[in-house]
């Protein structure tokens, strides 16, 4: 097991190093001066320039530059944004909660809907409900998320006018961003009619979260169905049937706990998909998260922000996949043999 973790960790470090190298190459290829692009200091004075050269070792060869670049970045110094001249790290902390919030609720919806759907499909294997579940998941899997978002805006937002289509909260509610998570902030704030504000925040969240949840829901449903089928056909289930246990007990006490573990681990692999779609969703619903922020940066050619965004998002996905890999192996001993076999 430890051996496996070390191998994974090596892989992680190596992948991140390559990622940093690619971003480093990208920064070098960007038009404009390297010191400006790498630090975000527009028109630095002579002393500032000198300091930047020191900091990023721009007078040394490319390898030193690369190492000092990594060094700055992993210490949380992502430079300044071109457009606001604020430290990028602080800006990122401001937009990150919105994205986390959106992804969290989407994942929650995906699990709440996807797991029961998968169980239903497995239990009613090759029956009408199973086909319905498969059909829905196939359709859901095939619909492009941006298109669905547009349709939802047109129908629920503009035509029926049920739900707001942009932002996280009506601006008339004066809620200060303490944690950055809308619901917590509303509860912490001292505004009147908190209930209305919570409801408003919920109505703002509903459409983006549901749209974003569609894809992971279908994936969860399919994984859950397969895992559950495998489990239901196992001998111990047949044995418990023979002993006369009730179906509910069999499904929820025996089959589900065994089936759900690998499912949860695999769901965490879906995080990269969610994060990618979340960026699209954020732009469409004007959700002030990291996707929106990055799109703005691209629009304004804010190179330091673009490179920081790539580093953080890609780094995050790499980290999550490595962690979930380890988690998967740790929770399902039967897979370990395969790992050892291959080593």
């Amino acid at each position: 097991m430890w051996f496996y973790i070390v191998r994974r960790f090596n892989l992680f470090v190596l992948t991140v190093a390559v990622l940093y190298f690619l971003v480093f190459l990208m920064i070098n290829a960007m038009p404009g001066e390297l010191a400006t692009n790498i630090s975000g200091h527009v028109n630095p004075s002579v002393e500032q320039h000198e300091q930047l050269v020191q900091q990023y070792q721009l007078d040394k060869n490319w390898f030193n530059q690369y190492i000092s670049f990594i060094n700055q970045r992993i210490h949380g110094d992502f430079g300044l944004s071109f457009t606001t001249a604020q430290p990028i790290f602080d800006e990122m902390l401001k937009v990150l909660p919105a994205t986390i919030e959106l992804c969290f609720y989407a994942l929650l919806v995906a699990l709440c809907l996807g797991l029961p759907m998968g169980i239903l499909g497995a239990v009613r294997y090759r029956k009408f409900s199973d086909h319905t579940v498969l059909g829905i998941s196939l359709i859901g899997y095939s619909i492009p998320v941006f298109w669905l978002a547009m349709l939802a805006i047109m129908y629920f937002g503009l035509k029926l006018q049920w739900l707001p289509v942009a932002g996280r909260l009506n601006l008339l509610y004066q809620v200060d961003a303490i944690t950055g998570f809308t619901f917590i902030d509303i509860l912490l704030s001292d505004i009147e009619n908190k209930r209305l504000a919570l409801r408003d925040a919920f109505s703002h969240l509903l459409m983006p979260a549901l749209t974003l949840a569609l894809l992971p829901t279908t994936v969860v449903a399919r994984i859950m169905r397969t895992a559950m089928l495998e489990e239901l056909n196992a001998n111990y289930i047949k044995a418990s049937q023979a002993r006369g246990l009730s179906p509910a007990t069999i499904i929820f006490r025996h089959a589900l706990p065994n089936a759900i573990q690998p499912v949860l681990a695999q769901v965490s692999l879906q995080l990269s998909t969610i994060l990618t779609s979340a960026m699209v969703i954020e732009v469409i619903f004007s959700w002030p998260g990291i996707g929106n922020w990055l799109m703005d940066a691209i629009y304004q050619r804010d190179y330091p922000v673009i490179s920081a965004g790539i580093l953080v998002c890609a780094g995050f996905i790499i980290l999550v996949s490595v962690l979930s890999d380890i988690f998967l192996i740790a929770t399902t001993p039967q897979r370990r043999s395969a790992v050892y076999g291959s080593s």
Partner: protein
Amino acid sequence: MINWFKKNFKMSLLPVILMMTACNPNFDGTAHLTPGVVYCSEGDPTTFNPQLTTSGTTTDATSYQLYNRLVEYDPELGVIQPGLAHLWHINENGKIYTFYLRKGVKFHQNHGFTPSREFNADDVLFSFNRIIELSHPYHHISGGLYPFFESVGFGQLIDKITKVNDHMVTIHLKEKDSSFLANLAANFAVVLSQEYGDFLLEKNQPQLIDSQPIGTGPFVLDSYFQSNHIRYKPNPHYWDGPPKIEQLVYDITPNSTSRIAKLMTGDCDVSALPQSSELDILRSNIKLELQIQTGFNVAYWAFNTERAPFDNILVRKALAHAINKKAIVEAVYYGSATIADSILPPLSWAYNEQLTTYHYNPERARQLLEQAGYGDGFTMDLWAAPVQRIYNPNAIKTAELLQGQLAKVGIKVNIISYGWSVFIQKLNSFDYDSVLLGWTADNADPDNFFRPLFSCAAINSGGNRSNWCRPTFDDIVSQAIAETDQAKRVPLYHQAQQKLNQTLPLIPIAHALRFQVKHRTIKGMPLNPYGGVSFAKTYRKKAQQQEQK
């Protein structure tokens, strides 16, 4: 196995259904709000002091909300009306203006600062001396550029400003200027608090005067989150009666479609600059009201006339022939604009109808280029901001059309764009070949289209984007200003337009109509043809409020 499950299927499904509903609580969609008005604005203000800028987005967010002027311009009647000065008179030779100031006007209060006295003559002196006196402690704070005032030659014009008593101020001019009062009524000529200035100097934070503003206006700045929103609270002591809304929020939404969507779903009550392509949708929505106003504006394509090849008049003429303004008006403005032949809109009394029109003629353009020695064409940069402006709803699209049209005469165009504040900042270093910009007049005086855009003084202040300075032209415009008789000013302005038309420091493209769209329940918001939105008198119609309750 399957059959066996089937028997107890309903029972096993029950928790599943429970799980699904638990995660998906009902929503009834009628959540409602605290009273206030949300305005969907098109961009971030660059500062909270309109003295420092000519950008319409900035003045929209500041001029009429946070501040007052000595005199105000009434767009409906077209006359100057009392503001902070309730009375004024001009002496016979037109050089001494005496203002009698209003009593009982209170300044705002914010977390650090509480005014101890009411508005008086010192504040007027402070506000204008900041602009004209280089030695003033606040002159160089925030860059020391006062583009509007420099372009109208404020510093050269004013001899001195004197305080007669606490409620009386006289301004002595060096020469007669028929547009002086109109300039004092412009969005930029706001009155700041001297007491606040002293307070900040003492705290050694003078720069805060422009980011944490104190004014006399109907609203107080509460908070500002860049690229997100600006929040204002009503000023309960406003001299002209406190605002009737409890809160004013500017929702910064650069994307026009998002603004319309927010408007339709009720996240916004009033929206700036709807796009021409969206007008039909807006008209068909019974909840919304579209206000239309002939705009005193112009969108233009300015050349950096100090750079080759744009220093060559033949090249500029060739470019004028190479572009198809009609196509731009149709594709970018969807017809909600008129083609511009002069910098001045045809509505103005000084408009010259005799100007040469540069028709779309790529053949002629190529000939001219050949004459100028650029027969093989060249590569140029075209700067355009990705922000919607009153005069140009989509500068990027305009730039792309120009790119296509110029490709036909062998000119390769690189489009360069930045966010608005960066864009304006970078323009000041004249580092461009050409730029798509525009101008919205601040008052009805035709001078507003000439001095701020073409005078030599406007090069430093950033209004003269063509980098074009001709003393002879400045003379014509100065003569026109010194004249008070309108009939005598007309030929001078005709001459000025003629000169611009022949030398083409910039090519006027179009005059856009002005639009504003709002919910029908929002009242008291006339659309000002000269730019500048005001919420001082805005209110929600009562009937609707009860309906909502």
